[in-house]
């Protein structure tokens, strides 16, 4: 995979949790790559490490958890010049990480109840975030021009009118190199931008939502507000961790459509963490499958559904309830998810695998390009 297309590349990521019962080897060499403009699905059973991977990318793993080794390269592109700078997120100073987290890479969590602060109005919270992340000097000038233009309507004495027109011209000259605005103007501009964000996520009656508190919104509206907040800083990468799981199908459909539209508009790359293969099929063009802390398969979505190559993926796909089957038993993968304190040796899937051979018990399979554009970590890949 040519690196110039990539926006994120994770190699050999290991994250452990040092618990009372023992060391949980949660991530054991995760490999991921995300291309610019792609929407990648990250799928796998409960506890396979999807959320820990997301948290590791943002360096949000808290004790007793610790990122042990690996590389997370973020290919940041400058908004203006388009110049691309590779940054190893794991080597960044915590200060510098603050400039990446929530600014270049944003995350929306599973629970729509996790609004940052339940006691502040939605508008205040989004505007706060705008103030924190955006240089509003240009917006302030635009706001002033807008105000002046508005004052031009109606009856104005000719003298006053020409004064205003002159003022507008003066501000328009500032647009190229806007001066540092004062705090009051900045706050006002932040409110305007916040409302724009709510419009962008198709929030019904955005101006009244600005004045409401998180608990007054429905789950779907809250999720939209969270997405708006995550987009405030125009991130390069947006990570949605089960962002639609708790929602009704109808609301979920609205939010997924929204993500699809937004991608075109803001040009971000998206990682969708989900265990719903329907969501993957509808929104993602690429998909990575995880099993017990490892990446087992990675390819185009169409390819995965048509020709899964890893035995685990094949099992996972048959376990998805088909909409049109009649009442019958659900196909299931035999056995259960392993405990990660004493994970199985070699291939972590081997105790549940029908294709397991001797080597599988001893050697961990590496993620390799099995055929062009289709990566798999298995000693005996199907087909």
């Amino acid at each position: 995979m040519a690196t110039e297309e990539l926006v994120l590349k994770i190699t050999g990521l290991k994250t452990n949790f040092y618990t009372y019962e023992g060391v949980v080897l949660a991530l054991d060499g995760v490999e991921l790559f995300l291309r610019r403009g792609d929407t990648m699905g990250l799928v796998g059973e409960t506890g396979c490490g999807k959320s820990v991977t997301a948290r590791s990318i943002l360096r949000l793993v808290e004790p007793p958890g610790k990122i042990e080794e690996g590389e997370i390269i973020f290919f940041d592109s400058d908004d203006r010049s388009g110049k691309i700078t590779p940054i190893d997120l794991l080597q960044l100073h915590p200060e510098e990480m603050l400039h990446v987290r929530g600014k270049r890479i944003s995350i929306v969590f599973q629970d729509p109840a996790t609004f940052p602060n339940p006691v502040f109005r939605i508008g205040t919270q989004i505007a706060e975030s705008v103030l924190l992340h955006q240089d509003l000097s240009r917006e302030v000038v635009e706001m002033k021009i807008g105000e002046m233009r508005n004052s031009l309507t109606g009856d104005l004495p000719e003298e006053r009118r020409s004064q205003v027109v002159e003022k507008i011209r003066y501000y328009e000259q500032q647009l190229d190199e806007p001066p540092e605005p004062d705090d009051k103007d900045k706050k006002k501009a932040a409110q305007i931008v916040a409302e724009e964000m709510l419009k962008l996520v198709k929030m019904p009656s955005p101006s009244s939502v600005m004045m409401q508190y998180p608990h007054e919104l429905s789950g779907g509206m809250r999720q939209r507000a969270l997405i708006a907040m995550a987009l405030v800083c125009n991130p390069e990468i947006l990570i949605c961790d089960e962002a639609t799981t708790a929602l009704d199908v109808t609301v979920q459909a609205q939010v997924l459509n929204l993500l699809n539209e937004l991608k075109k508009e803001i040009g971000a790359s998206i990682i969708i963490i989900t265990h719903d293969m329907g969501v993957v099929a509808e929104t993602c063009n690429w998909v990575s499958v995880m099993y017990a802390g490892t990446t087992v398969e990675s390819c185009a979505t169409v390819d995965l559904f048509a020709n899964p190559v890893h035995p685990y993926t094949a099992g996972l796909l048959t376990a998805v309830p088909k909409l049109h089957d009649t009442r019958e038993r659900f196909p299931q993968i035999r056995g259960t998810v392993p405990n990660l304190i004493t994970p199985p040796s070699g291939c972590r899937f081997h105790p549940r695998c029908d294709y397991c051979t001797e080597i599988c018990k001893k050697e961990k399979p590496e993620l390799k390009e099995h055929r062009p554009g289709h990566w798999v970590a298995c000693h005996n890949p199907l087909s």
Partner: protein
Amino acid sequence: MSDDILVKTRGLKKYFPLTGGVFRKVIGKVHAVDGVDLDIARGETLGVVGESGCGKTTLGRTILRLLTPTDGTIEFDGVDITEIKGRELRETRRNMQIIFQDPMASLNPRVTVKNSVGEPFIVNRIARGPRMRDLVLALFLKVGLTEDHLNRFPHEFSGGQRQRICIARALALNPKFIVMDEPTSSTDVSVQAQTLNLMKDLQDEFKLTYMFISHNLSVVKHMSDRLAVMYLGKIVELTPGDIFREAQHPYTFALVSAVPIPDPKFAGRAQLLKGEVPSPINPPRGCRFHPRCIFCRDICTREEPELRDVGDGHLVACHFAGELDFGESVQQEYAVALADM
């Protein structure tokens, strides 16, 4: 015929008072369940679907008399249980159980799972001590847990295992009827498949009758013999057929169309439902769905449609049931594609 009916409700309503202001005065009513007529046959699984807040959980809990109905009647096993109390109610409850969405919340974290599952034996003075332990072990083996799980605490189990513990507890008193409220929505596909298969096996073994509540249409459909669709406290469609192909109520059709299809060939679908569920405090007049319905006509804003049989036990509450043309849907195309395979 009526012998085959285990649960029967007529005009069942459950309103919650809505309080507000400094003095917590009643300022309105939440019409959570608003006139439900339902027959559940012995041994069948009735699926109930609908958007969050439409009253699924309230319906289940009211049938079990965990909530007092506001109006209407409930018959269980031929007996009117709408107003029974005390001993009689306790006796009846032994035959009816509920399994909740979040298994962690329904287990006491400080009690071993043996004691949690054995509690009904003690409360009902059936068994204690070693005899209780044997009974619990028998249940554990039935649901695929083992002897060394007995003395552990809930946090030591995975989501799927905890769900099994709750199932074991629900089975303890040998019930006839079990309400499953979103039993698998907190687990993922593979665990979900195991849990659902287990419930089907148990149903056959113990001749259980299920009411299966979920907002996951494909799962409900798999589990159910008949499917009821709820909207704002009412059943709008009830069918023994394939809801994905034969939906007749505009709401059901919209709901079905919103289900993501696990096949990228069918990505991209029309968004048929605008807006969110209206408030159950003041449900719209006439047909409750009319503000969101693209087929709405004059009569819909005035008259509430009855739930009527359109053939083969397929009930629909729409003035124009059978006359509406929904056009092609992605779901139908998908069904055809699957049939061709």
